[in-house]
């Protein structure tokens, strides 16, 4: 066979290995999508159709009544108001928790990396150590402490708990991000007369926007998906969506309404999912800029 004379771009070759790789990826994707598919399909079926037991078949007619029930009519114990209240509770818990923890973590990271107060490394080490201890261990002392300051079973209490438990990770990410910022930037601003807060708000925070986005997303999904802390600290009136979902799924009167359960589950999971889909590009960029570097 005549040897090809190399000229121009190298020709792409399709090898058996490559085909195998893509086949594997395709099957893996199917495997992980299957539960979601089953949930969506089941939520759109009527109970009589579900009883046929064909969980992979498409619904014969699209029936959205299960979604309506899940949102505003499903029962938890004896109250039948749907998962709606849980949704708004979760919003009320998550939004301030994310905003506060990101802000405090950003200030922490900024101070630890660019101002290096005395004992900065010890402080950072302690914070990290705190982050490594399983938080179940903190539950009881935390409950006692919250009760002592009259924050147990309150919205402010659960927000405070989320902020505290979020701090190690948020601080770590911001510290690593700000470590890569040239020290001279801070010096130049000091010569210009700016102080700690002015440098933070006018110079450092604008630089750290990608990191703010990433950390906000991490915190948002983490806090939205939290079950245990919400169950323990939020109190009956503020139970987050995850806890209420559990209550709905575990309430049985007569037959289990699988379609309602599926719809309620999807409603709960859709918020963090949507956030990842809408800002995936930012997420990757921020991770690449902050978490790996430094």
């Amino acid at each position: 066979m005549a040897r090809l004379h190399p000229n121009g771009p190298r020709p792409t070759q399709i090898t058996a290995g490559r085909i195998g790789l893509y086949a594997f990826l395709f099957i893996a994707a199917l495997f992980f999508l299957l539960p979601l598919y089953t949930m969506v399909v089941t939520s759109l079926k009527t109970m009589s159709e579900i009883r046929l037991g064909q969980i992979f078949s498409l619904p014969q007619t699209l029936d959205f009544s299960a979604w309506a029930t899940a949102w505003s009519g499903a029962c938890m114990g004896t109250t039948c108001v749907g998962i709606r209240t849980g949704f708004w509770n979760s919003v009320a818990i998550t939004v301030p928790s994310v905003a506060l923890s990101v802000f405090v973590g950003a200030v922490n990271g900024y101070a630890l990396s660019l101002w290096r107060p005395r004992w900065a490394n010890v402080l950072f080490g302690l914070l990290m150590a705190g982050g490594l201890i399983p938080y179940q261990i903190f539950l009881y002392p935390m409950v006692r402490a919250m009760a002592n300051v009259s924050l147990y079973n309150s919205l402010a209490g659960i927000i405070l708990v989320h902020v505290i438990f979020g701090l190690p990770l948020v601080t770590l990410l911001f510290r690593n991000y700000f470590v890569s910022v040239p020290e001279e930037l801070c010096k130049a601003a000091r010569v210009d007369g700016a102080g700690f807060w002015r440098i933070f708000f006018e110079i450092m925070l604008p630089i750290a926007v990608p990191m703010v986005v990433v950390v906000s997303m991490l915190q948002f999904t983490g806090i939205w998906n939290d079950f245990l802390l919400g169950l323990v600290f939020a109190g009956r009136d503020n139970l987050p969506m995850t806890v209420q979902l559990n209550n709905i799924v575990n309430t049985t009167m007569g037959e289990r309404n699988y379609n309602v359960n599926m719809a309620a589950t999807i409603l709960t999971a859709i918020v963090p999912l949507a956030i990842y889909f809408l800002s995936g590009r930012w997420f990757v960029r921020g991770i690449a800029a902050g978490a790996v570097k430094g």
Partner: protein
Amino acid sequence: MQSAVSIKDLKIAYGDHPVIEKMSIDIAPREFLVLLGPSGCGKSTLLNAIAGLQDITAGEIWISGKNVSWEEPKDRGIGMVFQSYALYPRMSIRKNLSFGLRVAGLPKTEIEARVARTAALLHLDKLLDRRPAELSGGQRQRVAIGRALVREVDVFLFDEPLSNLDAKLRNELRVEIKKLHQNLGNTMIYVTHDQVEALTLADRIAIMRDGVIQQLASPAEIYHRPANLFVAGFIGAPAMNFIEGRIERGDGRPVFVSKGLAVDLSGYCFQVATSDGPATLGFRPDHLVLDGAASGLPTIAGRISVVEPMGSEAVLWFDWAGQSLSLRLMGDVSLKPGDALAPGLDIRKASLFDADGSRL
């Protein structure tokens, strides 16, 4: 006359490790002082201490007749330019220039006037609405200089401002900084490790090593009469040639002898009384005369090993007694490696150092 900047018995240490020991300098108003030295000699630390960005261990710093040792950077009446430009990345050039003035709470019209004046001076008018990332390296450094100028202070501090630029831009900006100093007449303190910048810009150069000033003098003095071996070897490219030998006093006149070489030192201007003993003779490549026999000077004979033509001049490297010496020639050269030569040494332009490395 009152000094613009005065450093009194300054000491800076990191823990037990001293960076600067007992340093005192007086810098006159309108003076251009260059702090020159190898990396790690403490020159940037000294500049940061003057700026107030570095805590001092002992001593005093005075700027414009005021003891500012404990003052914040903004209250010291200084502007500073950094090596990495340190422009605020998310602000336009206009905002970068005006940041310090806005922090100080100056009226809007005053800020606009000052920014416009500075931008015109540095040819930044057309760039004011761009972001730093959209500028070239040279433009960014001009903005950084502008940010110092706009503060309208008495003393400017430069921390290796040209080190991040390529050679051509460096030459251009060097000339611009010199012009700026001639036009504005502010006191400038300039840190660099580049001897060309130091020699071209400075009124006086302070050569530092291990936190100690080795020599503080005009560029010409430092070039022609280095105070010790370190200064002699640090300044000049190619470096000064050194020959180890002894000073001997045969019939009353001092003579430098080394490996068959004997140089009459009666033409040398000693600054201290000498006795016989080991010494080092130093002479610059430009202080050798190619045709030694015709000049009547003592000659150093050898063979050419390398010829480095540089356009307007050329450097000849030749071997003498097992060591390589250099000679600078103006104009074109027809000599080739292997050719013999016997250049003459003008002892009046040479330098002699004693066994400790101090100038004789």
